């Protein structure tokens, strides 16, 4: 007898568990989909020279090529902007994009993905076709391809500041090398937080337009870091100027101006290289998410936002000139062939 009703009982429990699990999944998905997206980038120039960047973007995802471009690297591309020939000063010219891959020592800009855990997988598609999502890291490595991945950096090592700030403030201030932001969270009302809340980086969208003027240093979305050695990535703490806001993860709640926990940052810069003038004031608008901030530690890299070469546009313009006539010829040909089919099939049918 117990077995008789135990079975439906268990079944009901299983159903309930699955239901709760599904709801949890949905909530987690919506909570994560709520914030702004960031993706990491590791560019390995070989010989221990590596640069990382953290790029914020709006929308679901951006292409790998767009990520590389927004990080502020000087790019030379070929094949209608689908192949990367040269990053900054290393690589090949556009008309001979794989110039180093014909004879040893073989080298080209190999493209890798990781899900933020530092494990690289060689990309099976080109960077223009790959969509990078929130929390992923893309890697570029100058070398013989699959066998030479970039150094295995995790996502939180590249896009480090927003996650580190709210939890471990004293630890962050004690680091002498990096300019450390000190945080003064104004309203303590933001402390109760739901368990699924992921640390959400600072965002202009969370702050309404009437936000205080101190919030103008919010979220320079692309931060680029130069690492001198691969083994010590922690030294390259990017001096993110960030307003760390952590708000309840309920998707419907809109942050009001009064309780919005805006956090002002005062960069305590100890290293002389860091120039505070790099801190671009990105206004609280989502459109200006292309600004990049550079923080050279071991070497100086010029930010120089590179206008992307657009060979596609040129090719399209060149081919578009005679196309209406050509399409006319095509239509005439198709109509002629169809007419031939009809004419020749009639006497026999």
């Amino acid at each position, binding site marked *: 007898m117990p077995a008789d009703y135990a079975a439906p009982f268990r079944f009901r429990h299983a159903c309930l568990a699955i239901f709760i699990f599904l709801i949890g999944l949905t909530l987690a998905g919506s909570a994560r989909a709520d914030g702004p997206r960031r993706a990491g980038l590791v560019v390995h120039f070989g010989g221990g020279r590596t640069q990382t960047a953290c790029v914020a973007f709006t929308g679901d995802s951006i292409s790998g090529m767009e990520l590389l471009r927004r990080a502020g690297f000087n790019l030379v591309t070929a094949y209608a902007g689908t192949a990367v020939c040269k990053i900054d000063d290393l690589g090949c010219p556009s008309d001979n994009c794989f110039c180093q891959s014909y*004879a040893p020592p073989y080298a080209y800009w190999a493209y890798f993905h990781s899900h933020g855990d530092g494990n690289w997988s060689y990309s099976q598609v080109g960077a223009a076709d*790959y969509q990078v*999502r929130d929390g992923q890291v893309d890697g570029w490595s100058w070398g013989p391809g699959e066998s030479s991945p970039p150094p295995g950096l995790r996502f939180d090592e590249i896009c480090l500041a927003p996650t580190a700030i709210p939890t471990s403030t004293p630890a962050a201030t004690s680091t002498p090398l990096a300019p450390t932001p000190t945080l003064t969270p104004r309203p303590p009302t933001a402390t109760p937080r739901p368990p699924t809340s992921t640390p959400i980086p600072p965002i202009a969208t969370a702050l309404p337009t009437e936000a205080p003027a101190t919030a103008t240093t919010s979220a320079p979305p692309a931060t680029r870091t130069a690492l001198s050695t691969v083994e010590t990535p922690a030294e390259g703490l990017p001096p993110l100027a960030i307003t760390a806001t952590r708000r309840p993860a309920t998707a419907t709640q809109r942050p009001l101006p009064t309780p919005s926990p805006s956090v002002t940052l005062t960069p305590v810069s100890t290293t002389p290289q860091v120039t505070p003038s790099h801190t671009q004031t990105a206004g609280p608008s989502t459109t200006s998410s292309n600004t990049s901030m550079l923080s050279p530690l071991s070497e100086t890299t010029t930010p120089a936002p590179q206008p992307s070469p657009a060979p596609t546009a040129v090719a399209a313009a060149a081919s578009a000139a005679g196309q209406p006539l*050509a399409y006319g*010829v*095509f239509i005439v040909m198709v109509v002629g062939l169809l007419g*031939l089919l009809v004419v*020749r099939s009639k006497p026999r049918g």
Partner: protein
Amino acid sequence: MFHPAVWLLWLLAAAVPALSTRNPLYLVVVLLCATVVYQAVAARSPLAHDWRLVLRFALTLWVLTLVFDVLTWHYGATRLLALPDNWPIVGGPITLEALAFGLTSGLALTTLLLVFAAFNAAVDHYQLLRLLPPFLYQAGLVTSIALTFIPQTVASIRDIREAQMLRGHRFRGLRDLVPLLLPLLTTGLERAIQLAESMEARAFGHADPAPNPRTVQRFGLALGTLAVCVGLFAYTYFAVSRAFALAVILAGLVCLALVLMQSGRQRHYTRYRRRRWQPHDTRLAFASALMLTLTFARLWLDPAALAYDPYPAITWPPFDPVIGSSLLLLVAPAWTRK
């Protein structure tokens, strides 16, 4: 009808664009040309399959390609809708580029299928086998026997199945196949022995025993093969010595051709029902060769002339009237002598 060699040339001319381009405009032209040719040929050919059968098969292939491409290939700039990311394989954005790629791939497959359907309707396999050079005589013989056996086997499967069903046997599972397969095996063996006996009774292989290949020939064969392999390797892996590698490949091929011609000349084979070359064969050969020449010349001038790729962002396919009109030459076999 045309000489089988001319049909082979036409097949080459039609299959080169069908295999090498994904541009839907060129593919449509080739497809229509193949349809016209098929229609002209099938009216008089006993080999023609039912056109609707070919079309149905092509459409099935097309739909499968399209569904597979759209659901598994999530790249491209224009998103139509998105499936949840956590679904395996199919999860992710559905893009217009994947749709276009699936459509053009299916079109390419359909075009190729129709080209081969027209060719198969026009040319008998045995006619093709008779074109083989003498040194491939053995291979040709084996292939022609195999080709004869396939329809015979299909017929005997049908016979055995009917006979078993008359006895009340019903085919439901894998185990029920045993009463079908055993008789099939025995009939196949019987037929093979019969064929061997009948060939022997006609003194096949008795006249003069095949002469042993001479040492020079064996050496030349090995040397030619080695040269081709080494040349291919050098061509692929050492960019500096491309010309040298090509020379090595060419030398190997010449060596092979000389040896094979020499060994083919040792025995004299007669040919059964040799087909005469006629003036309209020359005309069709000229049309096909002209089409191939025009296409390759255009490709030589502009290597990307036939290329079309919807990725990363979809564009309208380009159409070059020169290539388009050269493709129209493929319709030539439709004007045969009545």
